């Protein structure tokens, strides 16, 4: 006899934990199975060198939803809130961002930036109301609440007023490059905004849809950036604690091999070790492709649905570079206190686009772009005394390298990345005592995300809202009885927000699911 649960959550990623905790809170007997030894999925702190730890994939907190924090009564300690951003220039004339303010650029740019932010924030607010809602169904059998939600979206857009509504509709499908080129003189300013628009995507600033990705980032938390104390694991641990408090069981080192299907419905899971757990409700925190193609298998679901899932675009392009440093590197023109901020290397929008060019053809960027922070600057727990950790997101690093990922290509890119950084931090190379590069291929292998894509699927119009992950399955329930999706592949998408997990739990509870 196998153990029977009300719900089994596959994967203890942050969304899985949010979902598990909320289901447990509603009185369900919940089991969470995590393949890795730590909970958190891609929101996790790991040691990468003796004495040095870092948030392995996600490293900054943008958008953990207040609703999640409130529902679960979380208390997340942060070491730095509202981090500023510094767009680095090789000549030391950096551009500094803080909220709606920018410095280091001309007066016209300052005014333009304020206007740009005002508009973007207004549009982001519109999206924000939808982050914590189940997208409405558009099918013939749409319910009243679906139609109401849809009407609300239309009304919200209309309420922007005539001019702003036109602007919204003009911008929403557009590319970021056109917008920044129209507004700003400063190349650094254009570059930094372009980078924010394309982070974690397989898109360049000239790709359509990059305003939407920018808005999505902004929508989560009005653009405020913070760093949790002890790295991302503290978020994951807080969520796991909440789930356990609510009565959920979390088991790590339990890799789910398949979702058991009986009589055309989900009936439980089987782990790699052959252990079976029964439940009429399986909630997958894994990405949609892994969930359907590997855990469920195509034969158990419909053909057209399989086809849509199979064709989900989810080619990861962002790598993580972690450096153990025997001291902070010198960055000309940056004051000591500013090491608590976030740095970006994206000298102009064309540079970012060119960095993407290589990735289109399966090559790594010759001149990559970076988002950098020094988590140990404010958090001494992450490195030995006097020493530091650098955490950087590096783009573009294709999941499928044409040459193939090997030790040789891996270390060649790591070398190139450090050399590029050294153009802004002259003494960096001498300070590196250990390093770790996680390519999307490594992220797939270590964090079990197909394509190593942190959004579990490109965040583009065709994979957004009503059609996330795919049309006909955007309400968390998959077209297989008893199977739900609760990860970033479901609406609204990636980032450590907990929105997908919370929405999924609410959809499950609302469906009147009972044993």
């Amino acid at each position, binding site marked *: 006899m196998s153990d029977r649960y009300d719900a089994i959550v596959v994967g203890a990623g942050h969304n899985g934990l949010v979902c598990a905790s909320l289901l447990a809170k509603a009185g369900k007997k919940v089991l969470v199975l995590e393949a890795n030894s730590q909970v958190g999925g891609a929101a996790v702190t790991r040691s990468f060198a003796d004495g040095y730890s870092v948030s392995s994939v996600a490293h900054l907190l943008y958008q953990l939803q207040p609703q999640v924090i409130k529902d679960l009564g979380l208390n997340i300690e942060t070491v730095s809130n509202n981090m500023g951003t510094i767009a680095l220039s090789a000549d030391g004339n950096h551009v500094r961002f803080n909220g709606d303010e920018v410095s280091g650029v001309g007066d016209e740019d300052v005014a333009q930036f304020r206007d740009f932010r005002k508009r973007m924030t207004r549009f982001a607010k519109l999206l924000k109301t939808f982050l914590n809602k189940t997208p409405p169904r558009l099918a013939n059998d749409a319910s009243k609440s679906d139609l109401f939600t849809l009407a609300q979206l239309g009304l919200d857009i209309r309420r922007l007023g005539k001019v702003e509504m036109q602007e919204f509709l003009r911008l929403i499908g557009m590319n970021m490059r056109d917008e920044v080129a129209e507004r700003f003189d400063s190349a650094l300013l254009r570059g930094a905004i372009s980078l924010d628009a394309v982070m974690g995507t397989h898109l360049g600033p000239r790709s359509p849809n990059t305003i939407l990705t920018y808005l999505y980032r902004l929508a989560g938390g009005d653009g405020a950036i913070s760093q949790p104390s002890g790295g991302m694991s503290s978020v994951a641990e807080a969520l796991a604690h909440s789930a356990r408090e609510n009565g959920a069981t979390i088991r790590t080192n339990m890799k789910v091999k398949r979702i058991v*299907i009986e009589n*055309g419905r989900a009936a439980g899971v089987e782990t790699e070790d052959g252990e079976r757990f029964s439940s009429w409700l399986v909630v997958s925190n894994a990405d949609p492709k892994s969930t359907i193609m590997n855990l469920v298998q*195509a*034969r158990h*679901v419909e*053909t*057209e*649905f399989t086809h849509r899932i199979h064709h989900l675009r989810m080619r990861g392009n962002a790598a993580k570079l972690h450096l153990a440093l025997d001291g902070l590197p010198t960055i000309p023109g940056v004051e000591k206190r500013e090491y608590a901020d976030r740095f970006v290397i994206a000298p102009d929008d064309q540079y970012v686009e060119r960095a993407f060019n290589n990735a289109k053809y399966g090559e790594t960027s010759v001149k990559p772009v970076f988002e950098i922070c020094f988590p140990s600057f404010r958090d001494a727990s992450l490195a030995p005394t006097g020493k530091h950790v650098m955490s950087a997101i590096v783009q573009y690093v294709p999941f499928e390298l044409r040459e193939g990922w090997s030790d040789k290509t891996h270390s060649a890119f790591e070398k190139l990345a450090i050399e590029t950084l050294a153009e802004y931090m002259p003494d960096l190379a001498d300070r590196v005592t250990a390093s770790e590069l996680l390519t999307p291929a490594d992220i797939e292998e270590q964090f079990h995300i197909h394509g190593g894509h942190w959004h579990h699927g490109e965040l583009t119009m065709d994979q957004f809202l009503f059609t996330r992950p795919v049309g*006909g399955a955007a309400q968390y329930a998959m077209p297989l*009885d008893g199977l739900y999706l609760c990860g970033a592949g479901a609406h609204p998408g990636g980032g450590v927000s907990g929105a997908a997990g919370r929405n999924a739990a609410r959809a499950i509870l609302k469906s009147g699911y009972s044993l």
Partner: protein
Amino acid sequence: MTIQEVPQGRLRSPFYPRQADLDRLFQWHDWKGYASAEGFYDTTLEYFSVRNSAGVFDLTPMTKYRITGPDSLVYINRLVTRDMSKIKPGRVAYAVWCDDEGQVIDDGTIFHLKQGEYRLCSQERHMAWLQMSAIGMDVTIVDETEEVCGLALQGPTSCSILKAMGIEGIENLRPFGMATYAFQDTEIMISRTGFTGDLGYEVWLSNDKALDLWDAMFDAGKIYGIMAMGTEALEHARIEAGFIAAYVDFLPANVTVRTGRSRSPFELGLDWLVDFKKPNFNGRRALAREKRNGSTWQLVKLDIEGNKPAHHSYIYSTSKGKKDVGFITSAAWSPVCKQNVALGTVRSPHGKVGEKLYVEIYYQREMHWSKMMAEATVVDKPFWDPPRKRATPPGPF
């Protein structure tokens, strides 16, 4: 770069040289890229050959897919609505396949050639759908339409003709059975299948032996009244047999644009092909829902008074003809049944067996149009269903 010759215009079946010799009507049409004859000498005569002796129909344009690989059974079983695990090697199954919404894409026959190896035959081409269905499965799908040719030999004397050709043991082949037989210095595959609702066989072979087969069959068949037939005679026969045809009695779901214009297996009267006990198949969820909530349409076989075929007629529930409840999709006067028969589609809950409906038949007399309201009775059995169709051995005719 090598340049591959692509045949221009319509393809000719390997039987074409013999067909051309016989052809007196010169009525050819396109069937999925092939030239297919509507008739050769007289379509009525050809029709009677099927019912009274034997007719030969060229099956070559039938789309044929070879499906192999470790997942072939799992694949086929997910593709079609019936349980294919029950179809052993050497058996043939009539099946339908549906889209995700449980709407019929097409029907066809599936030959279980040998363990794990299948051939799917259908009127339409389906490579895109079959490939899409193969995502996540280890199967290989090869279109072998042009490599395999076939003749349908249908009618009461068909078994005798094959016997006279020296096909040993053909009389023991059961309906929906298939086997390979020695023919001259090669092997041919014969299945006891057909589209006429009568005793009949389909012979499949490689193109190079096509003319030898034709010659042997017509030599042996001379005293058994063998006759080449075209699609018009076949169309007549299939209506009598109550068989449905794509683009006539239903539209493949993937070509419909308007909602509600496609049909589910239930709506086509194919309930017996839908097996909810077997593992998942495409359209299962939608069909289970339909089963619970009821279908919108019902395909009916109608026995209509009078002798004027009810082509394209509206169907009414009363003789007043105020509100139509459906329409005729196929109609014919059946000489062999002495019945005015038709297939039609009516809105549920109409269509119960025994129900009296009315069809509005328009007909022309010396240019002038007339119309009549004819009573039509819903029947459940095929109009033409002779015992010899099922008998093994079928007996000498």
